[in-house]
């Protein structure tokens, strides 16, 4: 079953297009990673799915309903980020109780256990928490809500390395026990690549790639060797990334549509063939500019 369907979705702020003809659909009970560079419209897309903001044009259906002002979508989804705001008058423990009265699938035992594990003070206040603690508390609310659609928008902002690891592990364990649709947007692809089943890659406000993680891992290969030979091999291929190492050596990432025999002969010709990690690949694909940061400082 498709829980999120989106056709030709567009959103503009003050005349500037953030999302542009975005079409995709997300299946039930999958963990999808939403990947893209800063300002590409990840948060905008997630907020439209959560019903916080309106689409400018196109169509978005969540549980076959338009999410904006839908009570059913709100009851069955949660949007977690570091900007979640709670009334300053309520203590953390009261906030958990309030959440449990609102979310129909709320798991209070899980919430309490996580709350204790991350050593929160039940009588503390949300607005007095540090950045990392705020993110952790919000993530607890997100996990314990057991919402059929759980959206994490950069959930690990400010968390330290060990809490981040714990969070991903908790997410995976709880997902296995209670499968549901989870969307995570993050810049740390390497941290979540083992968690994700699908990857949705945004570029220029559009759906650039939407494919299972396994396919993404094999989507491209890296070739390294003398520049001339490399040119020969890749001249009719889709080049994702190109880098010169020294004077005469090149490293090129290309779409992996080589036949096995072709790879074999490339290897024999002295080219080094490597797999490209999903996190590097995402960076290469979503790069908006040719060249790198070094070019900024060149010939000044």
């Amino acid at each position: 079953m498709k829980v999120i369907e989106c056709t030709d979705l567009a959103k503009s702020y003050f005349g500037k297009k953030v999302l542009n003809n975005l079409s995709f659909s997300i299946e039930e009970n999958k963990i999808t990673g939403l990947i893209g560079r800063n300002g590409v419209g990840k948060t905008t897309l997630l907020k439209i799915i959560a019903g916080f903001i309106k689409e400018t044009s196109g169509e978005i259906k969540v549980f076959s309903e338009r999410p904006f002002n839908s009570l059913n979508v709100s009851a069955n989804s949660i949007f977690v980020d570091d900007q979640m705001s709670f009334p300053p008058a309520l203590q953390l423990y009261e906030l958990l109780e309030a959440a449990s009265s609102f979310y129909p699938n709320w798991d209070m035992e899980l919430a309490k256990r996580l709350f204790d594990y991350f050593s929160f003070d039940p009588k503390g206040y949300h607005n007095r928490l540090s950045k990392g603690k705020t993110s952790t508390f919000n993530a607890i609310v997100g996990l314990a809500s057991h919402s059929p659609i759980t959206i994490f928008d950069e959930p690990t902002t400010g968390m330290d390395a060990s809490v981040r690891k714990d969070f991903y592990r908790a997410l995976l364990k709880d997902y296995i026990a209670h499968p549901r649709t989870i969307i995570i947007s993050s810049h740390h692809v390497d941290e979540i690549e083992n968690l994700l089943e699908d990857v949705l890659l945004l570029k220029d406000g559009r759906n650039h790639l939407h494919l299972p993680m396994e396919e993404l891992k094999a989507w491209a290969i890296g070739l390294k060797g003398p520049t001339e030979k490399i040119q020969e091999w890749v001249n009719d291929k889709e080049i994702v990334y190109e880098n010169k190492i020294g004077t005469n050596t090149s490293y090129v990432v290309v779409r992996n549509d080589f036949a096995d025999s072709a790879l074999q002969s490339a290897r024999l010709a002295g080219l080094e063939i490597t797999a490209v990690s999903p996190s590097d690949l995402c960076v290469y694909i979503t790069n908006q500019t040719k060249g790198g940061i070094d070019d900024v400082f060149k010939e000044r």
Partner: protein
Amino acid sequence: MSLKNVNLTEVVKRQYFFKLKANIDAMSSLVFLQLLAMLFSMGGSNSFHSSYDQVALEVSYFSGDVIIGFTMIWAFVTAITITTRQYRNHDFSFVTNRLSSSLSNILFLLTASIIGGITAILARNLLLVFKYIFSEEQIYGIPLTFQDLLLGVSATIIYLFAVSAIGYLIGALVQISKAFVVLIPVLFIGMLFIDGVMNRDPFIAYVFEFYVMESSFGLFFVKMVSTAALFFIASISILNRLEVRR
């Protein structure tokens, strides 16, 4: 995870109880304001002095008007406050849509008006008790029957609810555009000026006459509550289109 359907009434009810807890600060500011108003009223709202030969006469009037006035300002400010972005975001951390958020806000404002109305009238009586105990002057008062008290409380509650409806609408307008922060006072004061220049009774006087001078309680009730309802409906339809957390 299976989908759960929720209905509007259930969500509004939960939000209402949630807001009673979350907006507890409004209640503490009510207590503070009413104490302050009592302090101001201690000196009497109106007094005159006359002397003849050896006799000097000084009369001061005491009333709960200042307390009720302060409570009205409180209701107005509270209504504006809960339309602000921050308060709307609180709702959207949990289950809500814009309609349920407004409906629970209105229920909260009604509750606040009831609490404000009862405490304002009681504070007036407390003021008289203070005067009676601590002052050496003679106190005269029109005897207050239970019926009068009930009438006073209900009228105050209706006033407060109407004032909060105005506040809620202004708050909603400001949420569309910050220009209304300037526009509304300019319009209001500008109207007084124009009426002054044109040498006619200010428009606000007619409004005052229509609502406040009404001598039949039934008619007063109908006028005030239906106007408040209109204001709230306007606010709901404005807030229904607003995006949150953008």
